[in-house]
């Protein structure tokens, strides 16, 4: 059986069967770790959720012995899984509510307690699609967004993982956001 490190490296090189196996092996575990971390924290964490669950993934990466590039691929993968957890949740909610997407967006925005929730349920699905395109165009930039936006990885951590300066990571992040906005076809100035 291939190790998680081998699977992450192969999957990042475009090996489809490795990606499938990774999905089957890591998806339920990532979900479990995230739930567990959240349950341990008790109470409402709101805007710190990704940072909070990230600590659980640090331990998971350590126990799998992930270092360097494969560790980076892993955190990017965590981002993808957490995104799909949210998308599944949003889809299930909109399926149970007969009101459909429009009503759902209103509910979720209110719950987020943010007057201008930048990411609405329907956006999330479009973002998912744009990110998949980005994965084909520029894998390192794609992984950067997954890590920083959806997996709670910090800029310092990424700099360390990639062995580059903080400044480089920040510049790449600016580029990544610009490319994502471009792929989404939004008017310039939209924030992600």
């Amino acid at each position, binding site marked *: 059986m291939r190790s998680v490190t081998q699977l992450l490296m192969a999957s990042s090189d475009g090996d489809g069967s490795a990606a499938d196996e990774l999905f089957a092996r890591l*998806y339920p575990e990532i*979900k479990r770790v995230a739930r567990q971390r959240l349950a341990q924290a008790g109470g*409402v964490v*709101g805007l710190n959720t990704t940072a909070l669950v990230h600590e659980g993934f640090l331990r998971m990466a350590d126990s799998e012995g992930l270092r360097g590039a494969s560790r980076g691929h892993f955190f990017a993968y965590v981002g993808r899984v957490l995104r799909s957890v949210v998308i599944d949740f949003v889809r299930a909610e909109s399926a149970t509510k007969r009101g459909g997407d429009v009503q759902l967006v209103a509910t979720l925005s209110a719950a987020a307690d943010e007057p201008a929730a930048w990411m609405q349920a329907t956006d999330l699905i479009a973002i998912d699609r744009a990110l998949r395109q980005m994965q084909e165009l520029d894998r390192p930039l794609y992984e950067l967004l997954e890590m920083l936006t959806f997996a709670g990885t910090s800029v310092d951590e990424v700099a360390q993982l990639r062995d580059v300066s903080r400044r480089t990571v920040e510049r790449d992040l600016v*580029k990544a956001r610009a490319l994502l906005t*471009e792929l989404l076809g939004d008017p310039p100035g939209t924030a992600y």
Partner: protein
Amino acid sequence: MIDRANWQAASALLDEALALAPGAYEGWLQALRQRDAALAATVQRLVSRTAAPAAAPAFDALLQRALQQAEPEAADLAGRRMGAWLLQSKIGEGGMGQVWLAQRADGLYDAHAAIKLLRGDLQRSPLSERFSRERAALARLNHPAIARLLDAGVSDGQAFLVLEHVAGQTLSQHVNGACPTVASRVRLLMRIAEAVAHAHAADRAPRPQAVERDGHRGR
């Protein structure tokens, strides 16, 4: 839409643009426009997109709610009918899905079986093809050390395999309890290897981890 070659050229220029001294951008863009007007337009658009501030994502709040919600898979499947079979209790769970103990429910005869269900979120993924492959491979297998495939189907969009139920222990439990000596463990390993070899011969994509599940027959 931006393509790969397009993006590679634009990405390098975007690096350049972001490193320019204040005030140098307009002249730089002008020079680029004279070289390649289309590329200059793309780069200009991308640069204007970099002005976006980094917003705090509401993703966190959504993630919290999603994670706190009861696991949809934990929906109790006990009593659900899959073809001629009635699910009774969950035996195990792996990356691909759950395994349930099931009872024949059409009254034709009394029997128990193990039913393997593909995880709901995988139904549309390429893994469902692997599930079908496993079904095809198992159907061809006939070996005393491999659990037999009895039936298969799809119920309410849920793919399932009905396998011979082996009321055994996991391999490690069995080894700890019944195989104290190295010699007995090697004998067991050889029997497992024979079964794996048989599966190999029947299909190029065997599932050796399935054999690890119990001492005599695996799922």
